[in-house]
C-alpha cells in the first residue's frame, strides 16, 4: 500500500456514511469523503451546516461532548479510528487541530510548543526538544519573530502570532493530518494572509483540512473542496471545479451568494 502513495496522492482519511447526533439533533447525515494526503481540503457551507462538527469527528474531539454520538466509519490510513483498540490520545497526536480562536496556554511560547512533544514523549532530551520547538516555530513562520523571547508568555503575542503559535503547537507532535477550524476568522487581513501562506507550505508535508466561512479563502488555499449543507455533503470535488462549474444546484446557489 505504501508504494501507491508516493506519486499519486494517496487517501489519508476515508470516511464512510458518517452520521452524528447531538442529543435529538441529527447533525451529520451519511457523509462519505476521502481526504487526500499532501492536499489542502476545504469544507465550506452556510453556518450550522455541520462542517465543524464533521471536522471534529476526524480527531474524535466530539468524544469530549457527552451527548454527541458518531456512527459510520472513519479510517486513518486504513485503521478505523473509532475502533476500541484506538486510543483517542494517540489519534489526536496523529491528527492535530487548530481552533477558530487562538487558544495559547498561559505558559511561555517555548512551553506551548513543547507541550505536545513532552506529553507524548517524542523528544529524547532537552536538545532534541529544542530542535523540535525550533523546527515547529520555523514551519509556522513564527521563529524569527519570537526566537529572542521564547520564555515570554504565549498570551502576550498578537492575535495572528497567537494563531501561528497554535499551529506550531499542533505540528510539533508531527501529525499526519492537520485540522483547522476557521483558523483565520479571528484575525485581521495581514495575519490572515500570513496564515494562508503557511497553510500553503504545510501542504508539502501534511494532509490539511480547513473549515472556512470565506469562499475566497477556500479558493485560495485548497485543492479540494467539500460543500456541506444542512448536515449533508452534496458535493466534493476539485476546488477549481466547485467554484467554476459545480454540479449540484445547492452548491451553485451557495457560491453565487443566493444563501449563506
Amino acid at each position, binding site marked *: 500500500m505504501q508504494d501507491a502513495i508516493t506519486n499519486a496522492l494517496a487517501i489519508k482519511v476515508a470516511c464512510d456514511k458518517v452520521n452524528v447526533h447531538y442529543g435529538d439533533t441529527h447533525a451529520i447525515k451519511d457523509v462519505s469523503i476521502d481526504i487526500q494526503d499532501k492536499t489542502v481540503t476545504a469544507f465550506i457551507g452556510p453556518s450550522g451546516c455541520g462542517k465543524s462538527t464533521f471536522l471534529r469527528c476526524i480527531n474524535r474531539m466530539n468524544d469530549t461532548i457527552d451527548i454527541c454520538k458518531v456512527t459510520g466509519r472513519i479510517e486513518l490510513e486504513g485503521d478505523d479510528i473509532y475502533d476500541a483498540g484506538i*486510543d483517542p*490520545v*494517540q489519534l489526536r497526536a*496523529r491528527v492535530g487541530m487548530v481552533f477558530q480562536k487562538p487558544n495559547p496556554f498561559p505558559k511561555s511560547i517555548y512551553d506551548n510548543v513543547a507541550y505536545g512533544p513532552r*506529553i507524548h514523549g517524542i523528544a529524547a532530551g532537552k536538545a532534541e526538544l529544542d530542535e523540535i520547538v525550533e523546527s515547529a516555530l520555523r514551519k509556522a513562520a513564527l521563529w524569527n519573530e519570537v526566537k529572542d523571547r521564547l520564555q515570554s508568555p504565549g498570551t502576550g503575542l498578537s492575535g495572528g502570532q497567537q494563531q501561528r503559535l497554535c499551529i506550531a503547537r499542533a505540528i510539533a*507532535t*508531527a501529525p499526519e493530518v492537520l485540522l483547522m477550524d476557521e483558523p483565520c476568522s479571528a484575525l485581521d487581513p495581514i495575519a490572515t494572509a500570513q496564515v494562508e501562506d503557511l497553510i500553503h507550505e504545510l501542504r508539502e508535508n501534511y494532509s490539511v483540512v480547513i473549515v472556512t466561512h470565506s469562499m475566497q479563502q477556500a479558493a485560495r488555499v485548497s485543492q479540494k473542496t467539500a460543500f456541506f449543507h444542512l448536515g449533508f455533503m452534496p458535493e466534493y470535488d476539485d476546488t477549481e471545479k466547485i467554484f467554476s462549474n459545480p454540479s449540484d444546484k445547492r452548491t451553485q446557489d451557495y457560491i453565487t451568494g443566493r444563501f449563506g
Partner: protein
Amino acid sequence: MTTTTTNAGADWKSPEAAARVRKRHAGDLRLKFAGMAALGFAVLMLAILLVSLFANGYQALRQTHASVTFELSAEHIDAADPQRGNYRAIVQDAVQGLFPGIDNPGELRSAVGILSNGAQNALRSIALNDPSLIGQEVTIDVPLSDPYDQLAKGLVDRDSPEDQRRLKDADIALFDTLQARDVVSLPINWALVTNADSRFPELAGLQGAIWGSFYALLVCFVLSFPTGIAAGIYLEEFAPKNRLTDIVEININNLAAVPSVVFGLLALAVFIGWFGMPRSAPLVGGMTLALMTLPTIIIATRAALKAVPPSIREAALGVGASKHQVVLTHVLPLAMPGILTGTIIGLAQALGETAPLLLIGMNAFITEAPSSLVDSSTALPTQIFIWADSPERGFVARTSAAILVLLAFLIAMNAVAVFLRSRFERRY
C-alpha cells in the same frame, strides 16, 4: 523546508508507544482516585460528625423517670405560704417510703439522690397551683438524677470495679429495687425544649436558649433586612460610579470577611462599653448579628437586582415612571425571592454564630427564658458551648442533642431558602 519530518505513523503502534500510553492513562486513574478519595474524606468526615452527634444525642432524647407517690403533708407545707414549704423533707419521706429497709440518715441521703432535685420544684409548683392538695398524696413522674439516668440507659458498666464508677453497688441495688417495682419509665424528654438551663443535666433544657436565639434573630432581621435591601438597591441602581461608591463596595466585601470575634469586640466596646446597653441581652446580640448579616443581605440584594433583565426597567421608564417608582414597584418585587433566599441564608449563619455572643456575655448561666429583648439570656450556640464545657456525663448527650436541635433549625431555614430559590428561579 530543510527539516526532515519523520512520519511518526509507524511509531504509534510500537509496544513502547503502547506502554507509554498505558502509563499516561494510569495517571488519569491516579488523579481520579485521589479526587475520589478526597471527596470521600470530606463526606466521611461529615458522616462521622453526624453519626457521633446522633449516637450521643439520642440518649438525651429520652429521660428516665420514676413514678413516685409523695405526701404533701401539712406538717411540711404551710397552706398559707406554699412557696416556702420544706419540700426536701417531703421528698425524703417519700424515698424512705420507697425503701423501707434504709434506717440510717447517711444511706437515706444517698438514696434521695436517686431522684432529681427537680422533684422538689415539681412538688412546689403542684402545691402552688392547687393548695387544696396539701395534706394529700400525689403520684407524679419525677426525673431520676443523671447517674441513675445513665444507669437506666445502660451506659454504666456494672462489671467495672466499684471504685471506678460513680454509682456504688448499693446505689445500683436501690435502682434495681425501683425497677423491679415497675415504676421506672423512659419517656421522650420534652424537658429538653420546655425547660431552661439547669446545673443538673436531667433538668437542663433549651427553652431559654431557643427564646434567646429567637429574640436575637428577630432583632437581627428587623435591623438588617430593610437596611440591607436599601443599601443593595442604592448601590446597584442609584449609586454614581465614583470613588466613594468604590470604597463602600470594597468595604462591604471586606466586612463580610472580618472574623466574627472582631464583631464581638466591637459590640463589647461600643454597645456595652460606650452606650451602656445591658450585657447578655438578645437585643445587643441581635444588633451584633445584624452588622454581620448586613453584607450578606446587601450582596444577595445586588445579585437579585442584577438578575432582573434591563428590559423590565426600560419598559417601565419608557411609560414615564420615575426611577424610584420603577425600582420599588417593578424591579424589587421580581428580585424579592432572591433577596429573601439570601436573607434566610444570612440568618441561618447568624443563628450558628457563637463567638460574638460569648463576648457580649450571652453565655451566662440563666435558669429562666428571657421575657423581653433586654433580659439576660443565652442563645442556642452559646448554650451548646456552655454544656460542652460542663463536666457532668449527662451533658455530653445533652450537648449533642442541643446541636441536633440547632441543626434542625438550620436545616429548616435552608430548606425554605432552597424552596424559594427553586420556586422562583428566573422565570422571566
